[in-house]
């Protein structure tokens, strides 16, 4: 990896990303207009130019946005034809599913793929239940453009089509091989410096920001906290603005509130917050009164037993989670969630997903780092605090799971589809690595199943997961679609090590024990930067494909 240089430049990266992320922050794009590519809808001619030339057109972000909106409009007919009702639900699904459902007229070209890629019983038999709370959120998302980055990946992903037409094949894989349509990918990827282009360093270079000493870092952190607190203070928190601000990480002090806001748990209106919290906490404990006694009934005893076995095995290395009072909180949260969501029920891995919320919400009550320092919950927290944390965990977990529930329903179609999408993505962005894995019979499902099922929590230290979730909460479909790009970036992060392994055993053992133990924010930021670049590169691709088909 040639990321060592980039790592030293990381302090700006997060900042830079935050900017790159925020479509409405026009100054960034304007300022860099000549360098930062926009997407041209009529981009097919670009292919001829691609080889040795960057797109000449100077595009502001506004141009870019307008153009992509147009592109979306063209494709919309097809989707609308399928019915509005489906629309909001489909955006819950990974992009590739989205494709399978929406572009049914393309099915003819797909069946072999779906047959070979999913087990027979995993044919997307999507749960028809709709959990409360997801519809609002999701219909918003559905109206955003670029919701289906993976669509294009599947649609034109037969290996024959994707021979990179213009680029030196190795070792500069991360190009969008059929990139006739992506002016910006031309700019992002067709200027490979050495090895893989490095988005963070490119970004920070483009931003021309060069303050990386600790002092200015602390200052900027302080300034960020101040700004975030201004957002939080209301009277009506601008959630979009807040998301842009915290995409690159939430200051620790503000994290509990920001996470609750971005989970759509806490209302944007300041005055309603305390009332709402009180109401939701009461509601949760009504559930507990109502359902928890049923854990011994025959219907639920199995669920209960599974949870009960798993809790002591959750975060086994962190003493905090061996405390009885906390294990009981987990048991209640998981049991109540499970029996209120019978389509999935309790699935191992969901227990892990409580932890980031728990640690973050606990941090409201202590300055200790509860991950590394001893913290006796029953001594340091009163009953009320524990109850608040528990209820908040329950609701935020529920919101999170609403967006990825098909990961946990029968045959786990969400995971199957995401693993397939990951495979297709890696095949395109890093063909040598993909070929290496294939040559040694390493299947993506063998290692990436866990990445999807546990949202990389088994692969990363907890502190990194928390940082990762800052961004997931700030990203539309962060825990589903964006996570896929993160997984791709994460896999490619290890390409050098993996390419060196010459046999199946070596590859599998390495993939199962990736050395992230010393990782911190910088490493996560790098992965996120790359993931964002991938998302950006692949966003809207389906529209271009559709255009190609239509004309």
């Amino acid at each position, binding site marked *: 990896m040639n990321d060592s240089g980039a790592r030293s430049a990381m302090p700006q990266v997060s900042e830079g990303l935050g900017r790159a992320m925020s479509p409405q922050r026009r100054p960034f794009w304007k300022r860099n207009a000549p360098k930062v590519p926009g997407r041209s809808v009529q981009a097919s001619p670009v292919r001829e130019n691609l080889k040795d030339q960057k797109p000449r057109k100077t595009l502001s972000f506004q141009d870019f946005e307008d153009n992509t909106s147009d592109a979306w409009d063209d494709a919309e007919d097809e989707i609308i034809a399928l019915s509005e009702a489906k629309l909001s639900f489909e955006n819950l699904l990974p992009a590739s599913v989205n494709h399978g459902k929406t572009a049914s007229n393309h099915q003819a070209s797909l069946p072999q793929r779906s047959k070979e890629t999913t087990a027979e019983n995993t044919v997307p038999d999507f749960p028809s239940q709709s959990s409360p709370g997801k519809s609002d959120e999701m219909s918003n998302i559905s109206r955003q453009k670029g919701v289906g980055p993976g669509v294009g990946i599947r649609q034109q992903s037969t290996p024959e089509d994707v021979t990179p037409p213009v680029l030196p094949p190795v070792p500069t894989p991360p190009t969008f091989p059929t990139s006739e349509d992506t002016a910006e990918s031309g700019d992002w990827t067709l200027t490979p410096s050495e090895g893989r282009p490095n988005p963070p360093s490119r970004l920070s270079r483009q931003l021309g920001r060069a303050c990386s000493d600790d002092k200015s870092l602390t200052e900027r952190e302080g300034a960020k906290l101040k700004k975030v607190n201004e957002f939080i203070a209301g009277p009506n928190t601008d959630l979009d603005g807040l998301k842009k601000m915290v995409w690159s990480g939430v200051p620790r002090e503000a994290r509990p509130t920001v996470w609750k806001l971005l989970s759509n748990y806490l209302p944007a209106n300041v005055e309603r917050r305390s009332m709402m919290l009180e109401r939701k906490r009461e509601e949760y404990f009504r559930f507990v009164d109502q359902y928890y006694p049923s854990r011994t009934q025959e219907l639920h005893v199995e669920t209960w037993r599974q949870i009960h076995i798993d809790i002591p095995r959750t975060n086994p290395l962190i003493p905090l989670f061996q405390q009885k009072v906390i294990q009981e909180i987990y048991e209640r949260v998981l049991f109540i969630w499970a029996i209120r969501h019978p389509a999935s029920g309790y699935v191992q891995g969901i227990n892990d997903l409580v932890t980031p919320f728990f640690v973050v919400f606990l941090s409201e009550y202590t300055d200790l780092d509860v991950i590394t320092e001893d913290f006796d919950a029953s001594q340091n927290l009163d009953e009320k605090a524990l109850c608040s944390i528990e209820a908040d965990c329950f609701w935020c977990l529920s919101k999170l799971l609403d967006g990825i529930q098909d990961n946990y329903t029968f045959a786990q179609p969400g995971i199957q589809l995401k693993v397939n999408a990951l495979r297709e993505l890696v095949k395109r962005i890093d063909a040598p690595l993909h070929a290496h894995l294939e040559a040694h019979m390493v299947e993506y499902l063998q290692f990436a*199943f866990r990445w999807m099922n546990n949202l990389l929590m088994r692969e990363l230290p907890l502190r990194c997961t928390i940082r990762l979730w800052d961004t997931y909460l700030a990203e539309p479909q962060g825990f589903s679609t964006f996570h896929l790009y993160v997984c791709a970036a994460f896999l490619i992060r290890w390409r050098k090590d993996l390419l060196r392994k010459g046999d199946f055993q070596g590859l599998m053992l390495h993939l199962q024990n990736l050395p992230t133990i010393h990782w911190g924010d910088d490493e996560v930021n790098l992965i996120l930067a790359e993931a964002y670049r991938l998302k950006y590169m692949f966003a809207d691709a389906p529209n271009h494909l559709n255009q190609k088909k239509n004309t």
Partner: protein
Amino acid sequence: MAAGPYNYSYIFKYIIIGDMGVGKSCLLHQFTEKKFMADCPHTIGVEFGTRIIEVSGQKIKLQIWDTAGQERFRAVTRSYYRGAAGALMVYDITRRSTYNHLSSWLTDARNLTNPNTVIFLIGNKCDLEAQRDVTYEEAKQFADENGLLFLEASAKTGENVEEAFLDTARKIYQNIQDGSLDLNAAESGVQHKPSSPRGTQLSNDQPTNKEGCAC
């Protein structure tokens, strides 16, 4: 990591199955690392382990897939049965329910593996004699009736762990020797390595290996 590509003459594939919490991962860990892992997190999907053993003077590399016990993961774990030369079926001697579920695990194993797959029944946690809920005799009888090899073992103390993995390998090796296991058959779960130190990418030449996964 094994250094040379041919410091072994066979690869045998194993799968470990059984209810949640019976100690499948701990057995694997005890076997590959010779350590008891007290704080073993539950397995998600499948996990992989490997170790080289010796049977009748032949070095054999075991490739072991440890599966998640939870029902919801079966869609994924089932795809690992095919191509297993050995299946270790584990229950917990202190929890009768895990023993009662054996017939369902056995059905899966019979249906999804090839007829020559050696199935070894392990009653784990035999160090917890005071909490025993399943007698040795009834389990032995179950094993005999179904043609399974059987041992009680303890991933904690290591008792009989080596034996279970090695006896399975011996039985597979015996099946190879007496011709009842056809190495060329698809999904035999066994790969024979030529003794010449040539060609490091043998797995490329082994198309039958492909069945390892459903994706």
